[in-house]
C-alpha cells in the first residue's frame, strides 16, 4: 500500500486532483491528517469551483482524507447544497422532457443527470449545475419554440437565423424557474462539432431512470465520447469533474475500446479522446492503464492537430473555433454560406457582440490569422 501523503509536502492544488479521483481503482492517496485551515479553505474553494464537493464529502466520510470536525461539517453542508440543486434541476429536466415528448421532439439527456445515474455507483457523487439535452437538427427550431412557449428565454441571440440549426452547437435558454437549459445540436462549436455523425449519435438510447420516469440518454460509448469532448475541449483549464467522468467510465465499466475508437475515428475525433484520457490520467494522477498507454502513444492527423488548437491555444475563443469550423465544412458552396453567415451577422446579434460589421470583419480576420499562424 502506498503511504499516505505527508502533510508538509501537500499543496491543495495537488490534493484536489486526488479528491477528484477518490474511489477509483489506482487513485492516489489523500493526506491522512487534517489540512491547516488556510490550505483547507483553498481546497474547499477548488472543490466548489470544480463541482467536487460530493467527492470531497465522501472522502472525508470514508476517512480517506483527514478533517477536523468543522471541516467535516463544511464538506457535508456543501454536499447537501449541491444535491438540493441537482434535485431541482432534475425536476426541471422532467418538465422539459415531458414537453418535448408531448410535442413529438426526439431528444437525449446529456452530461450531469445521465452520467450521475448511469455511470457513477451513487448519483450523490456527481454534482451538476444545469441541464443539457441533445435534439436532432431537424427538430432544433421546434425544441426552442416549445421551450419559449413555456416561458424560457434564449440567453444569446443566434448569429444569423438558421445558423444554429445548420452549423451551431446549440443554444442556452433560461427557463421560467431560472434553470439553465443547454439545447445541443452537437457536442461543441467549431470543427469537432461539425464532424460528428449526428444521426448515429441519436440511434439506440440508453434509458436513465429519474424519479419514476425513464428518459432517453446516449449509449455508453457516445456518453464516454461526449465526456471526452467536454474534458478536452470544453474549457481551457479542464474541469476536474469532467476529467473524473472520463476516468469513471473507463475504470468502472466494461468499455469496448475498439467500438469507441471506431466511432471516434468516423467522427474524426480520436485525438479528442486521446487528449481527454491523457489529461484525466495526469491530473487525477491515476495508475497506468491500457487506455492511458494507448492515449500516450496516440498521434493526431493533420486535421485534428489543427482543429485542436482552436480549443486549446492561448487565442482560444468562440471566434477562433467558428473560423476553424470552416475546415470541417465539406463543400465549397457550404463553406461560402458558412463564412457569409458568420460575417453578415443578424443586426440583433451584431449589436451585442461587435457593434458594427467593420469590427466583426476585423475580429474574423484576427481569428483567421490566429488559426493559420498556429498550423
Amino acid at each position, binding site marked *: 500500500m502506498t503511504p499516505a501523503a505527508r502533510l508538509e509536502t501537500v499543496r491543495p492544488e495537488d490534493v484536489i486532483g486526488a479528491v477528484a479521483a477518490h474511489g477509483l481503482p489506482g487513485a492516489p492517496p489523500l493526506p491522512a491528517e487534517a489540512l491547516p485551515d488556510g490550505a483547507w479553505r483553498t481546497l474547499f474553494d477548488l472543490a466548489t469551483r470544480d463541482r467536487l464537493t460530493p467527492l470531497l464529502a465522501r472522502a472525508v*466520510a470514508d476517512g480517506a482524507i483527514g478533517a477536523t470536525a468543522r471541516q467535516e461539517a463544511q464538506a457535508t453542508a456543501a454536499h447537501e447544497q449541491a444535491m438540493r440543486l441537482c434535485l431541482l434541476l432534475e425536476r426541471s429536466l422532467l418538465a422539459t422532457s415531458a414537453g418535448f415528448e408531448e410535442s413529438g421532439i426526439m431528444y437525449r439527456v446529456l452530461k450531469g443527470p445521465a452520467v450521475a445515474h448511469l455511470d457513477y455507483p451513487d448519483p*450523490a457523487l456527481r454534482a451538476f449545475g444545469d441541464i443539457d439535452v441533445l435534439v436532432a437538427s431537424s427538430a432544433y427550431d421546434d425544441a426552442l419554440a416549445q421551450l419559449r412557449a413555456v416561458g424560457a428565454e434564449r440567453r444569446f441571440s443566434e448569429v444569423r437565423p438558421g445558423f444554429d440549426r445548420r452549423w451551431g452547437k446549440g443554444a442556452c435558454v433560461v427557463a421560467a424557474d431560472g434553470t439553465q437549459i443547454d439545447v445541443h445540436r452537437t457536442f461543441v462549436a467549431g470543427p469537432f462539432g461539425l464532424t460528428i455523425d449526428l444521426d448515429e449519435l441519436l440511434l439506440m438510447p440508453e434509458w436513465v431512470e429519474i424519479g419514476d420516469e425513464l428518459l432517453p440518454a446516449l449509449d455508453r460509448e457516445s456518453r464516454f465520447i461526449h465526456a471526452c469532448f467536454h474534458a478536452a475541449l470544453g474549457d481551457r483549464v479542464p474541469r476536474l469533474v469532467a476529467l473524473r467522468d472520463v476516468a469513471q467510465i473507463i475504470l468502472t465499466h466494461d468499455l469496448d475500446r475498439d467500438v469507441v475508437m471506431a466511432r471516434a475515428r468516423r467522427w474524426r475525433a480520436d485525438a479528442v479522446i486521446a487528449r481527454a484520457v491523457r489529461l484525466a490520467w495526469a491530473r487525477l494522477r491515476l495508475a497506468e492503464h491500457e487506455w492511458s498507454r494507448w492515449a500516450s502513444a496516440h498521434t493526431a492527423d493533420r486535421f485534428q492537430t489543427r482543429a485542436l488548437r482552436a480549443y486549446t491555444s492561448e487565442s482560444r475563443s468562440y471566434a477562433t473555433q467558428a473560423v476553424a469550423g470552416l475546415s470541417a465544412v465539406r463543400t465549397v458552396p457550404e463553406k461560402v454560406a458558412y463564412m457569409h453567415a458568420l460575417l453578415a451577422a443578424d443586426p440583433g446579434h451584431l449589436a451585442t457582440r461587435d457593434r458594427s460589421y467593420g469590427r466583426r470583419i476585423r475580429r474574423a480576420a484576427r481569428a483567421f490569422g490566429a488559426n493559420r499562424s498556429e498550423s
Partner: protein
Amino acid sequence: MPAPVPLYRAPSTLWREGRFGVVLLAPGGSEPRTLTGTGRDLWHALARPVSRPDLVAGLAEAFGVNPERVEADISPVLAELQRIGAVVPEEA
C-alpha cells in the same frame, strides 16, 4: 376492522443520500427537504410498501426501543411526508 393500508415512498420523489441525511423533492413540494436521524431510517424502511404497525415494529426492533417511542418519533415526519406526497398509500 380493515387492515391498515401499506405506505411507501412515492416513486416520483427525487432524492439523494449523504452524510447530511436524505434530501428529497416530492412531486408536490416547492423545495427539497432533508431527513436526518430517524427520518433517514424511516425513508429506507419505506422503500417497499409496509403497514404502519409493521413499520413501527421494524424500527423498534432495529433500534432496540419500545414501539411507543418510535410511533411518537415518526408520526410528525410521516405526516409531513404524506402531506407533500413523498409517501403514498400502496393503492395510489
